[in-house]
């Protein structure tokens, strides 16, 4: 029983992290038709900027509570800033050439990820977090680290916030309408390019946030941190249906749980099951679980 509870909660925390990464990817693809390979780098940068902030503010090797929350803010801002730079500087000139957009996000992802290695060297870094976060709470006999709960809570907040944004705000409407028919949104006199930048920045912010929490979850970071998780986020996005935030949330839960439970039995079964799931979804429901019939 305690193993089941532990695996479930850890799986949900993993799902929360994937969701933070996937939600932005999904929105970006929904609106702009861009498969953003740079997203993993925003995640890596979120993790590194969080680590760096804590390293600057707290005495070596410890993480104070204020430092941790400051780190989360810094990670979010850094993610948003990098995303804005990539969108405006690299993607915008290439809107007429979709394949090259994918390629340039690949290049940006590679360059930005390697930049962390250039600045902070390639070795893994231990992520110092406040004790109350790495301590465990006992639930139904399972000892679960507290950062799992924080991660899940953060993802739920983000999910609620995004749904409100999409349903209630004008920019949310623009994003949803743009995902359906970009040209018609333009023909209503709306500057869709600004919406592109906004969505990219928002996605970058969420990836940065996810990177900071991901660092707390795994306890250490290295330059390949983002690219490893990006692949799973892609799978989440496809299974959930490109452009659907709710779909991403559902798919993230499926993937997070499948991975945790699978890998508990053998070290590779979880990862393998996920790929099979992806293949099955694509063959049976090519639009994803919550996908529209685009």
């Amino acid at each position, binding site marked *: 029983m305690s193993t089941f509870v532990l695996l479930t909660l850890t799986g949900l925390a993993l799902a929360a992290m994937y969701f933070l990464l996937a939600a932005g990817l999904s929105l970006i693809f929904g609106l702009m038709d861009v498969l953003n390979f740079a997203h993993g780098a925003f995640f890596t940068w979120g993790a590194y900027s969080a680590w760096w902030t804590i390293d600057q503010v707290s005495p070596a090797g410890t993480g104070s509570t204020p430092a941790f929350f400051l780190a989360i803010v810094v990670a979010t801002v850094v993610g948003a800033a990098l995303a804005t730079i990539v969108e405006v500087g690299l993607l915008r000139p290439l809107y007429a050439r979709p394949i090259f957009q994918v390629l*340039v996000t690949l290049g940006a992802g590679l360059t930005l990820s390697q930049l962390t290695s250039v600045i902070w060297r390639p070795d893994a870094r231990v992520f110092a977090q406040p004790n109350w976060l790495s301590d465990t709470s006992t639930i139904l006999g399972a000892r679960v680290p507290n950062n799992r709960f924080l991660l899940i809570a953060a993802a739920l907040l983000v999910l609620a916030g995004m749904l409100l944004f999409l349903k209630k705000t004008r920019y949310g409407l623009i994003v949803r309408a743009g995902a359906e028919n970009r040209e018609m949104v333009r023909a209503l006199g709306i500057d869709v390019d600004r919406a592109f930048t906004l969505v990219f920045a928002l996605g970058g912010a969420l990836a940065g946030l996810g990177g900071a929490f991901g660092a707390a979850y795994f306890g250490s970071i290295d330059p390949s941190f983002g690219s490893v998780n990006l692949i799973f986020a892609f799978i989440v996005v496809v299974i959930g249906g490109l452009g659907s935030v709710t779909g991403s949330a559902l798919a993230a839960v499926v993937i997070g749980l499948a991975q945790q439970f699978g890998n508990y039995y053998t070290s590779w079964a979880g990862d393998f099951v996920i790929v099979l799931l992806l293949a099955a979804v694509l063959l049976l429901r090519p639009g994803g679980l919550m996908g529209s019939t685009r």
Partner: protein
Amino acid sequence: MTARTVSKMTPGGLVRSLAPVVVLLLLLVVPRLSIEVPVLFNGPLDRPGNLRLLAVGFTLGIAALSYNLLFGFTGVLSFGHALFFGAGVYLPAIALRHWEWSVVPSLLFGLAGGTVLALAVGALSLRTEGVYLAMVTLAFAQAGAVIVGKNVGDLTGGEEGLSLRTRGLPEWMVGVVNTDNLYWMALVTLIVVYLLAWRLVTSPVGQVWKGIRENERRVEMLGLRPYVFKLLAFVISGALATCGGMVYLFLASGATPRVVGANFTVTLLLMVIIGGSGSLWGPVAGAMLYHFLDIRLTDWAASDTVASLPAVLSRPLRDPLFIFGVIFILLVMFFPRGIAGAFGGRLRPFRHVFGGAVARPAVAPGKTTE
């Protein structure tokens, strides 16, 4: 009178036509050339280290060339190509080590395995299109990387990799002294693969591939099934990549998980973009250049010259991948046709074969000031 007929008659045109032949002959005799090429190569050209550097470049060239049949010529963006190169490396390595097969059956097993794998992955993935295809193939590549990296079935040696079992190999393939033989093996494989690819892209099948790249719907309207032709491209390019992987196995004296992951496919894409996706020889040149820089930059970064530079310069220089990332972005933004695009007008024999295949930039939507 067209430009081409003019150039054929001038001596300059003749030189350009002969250039590839000269390059080829030069490459064939490199293992017997005891010349020093300062800066570019360490020691005489025929030193085993230099021969291996070039030969590994050839095998990567095969992988990039085969990848470009799919990407550049058919317009299919797959992220799973490393799987097939990796199959070429791992399958014979496993047969040689664990089952103690001899070389020929091991290689045949590798080729068959790689081809079947390409058929299976292609048949499934090609039911989707565009970004979906990119992601599905990415996922398959990831599955492959997991199988290899986690040492499923105790066959692959996990992260450690699998060293080549030399006991069953013929003498001429074993040991540093025989690097020249491996060099020729790699070069001949490259030439054979190149000719095969050339034959394919100039055949009616190649025309259909180009048709699919330009406009799949039109191909459909001609009564052809794009799926079948894309699958053919997928399987052939996969099988050719497997060949490259098999040669690589002997040069690297073993298999490491590096050659299966999605990152390796990204590297292939990088080579193709550096070289230019519009031609056959471009990706080979791109792969050679990539590998050369990869190795030489790493050596160079360790040198005193770099160490004496301020950290702002020396640190990025120590990270070839960072430099490649920057180069990649610049190429995509400003020189999307790569090396081959830059020289496309010069190398005549290639241009009149592949002239039509050079990627045309799309017309920008929205208001332009042309």
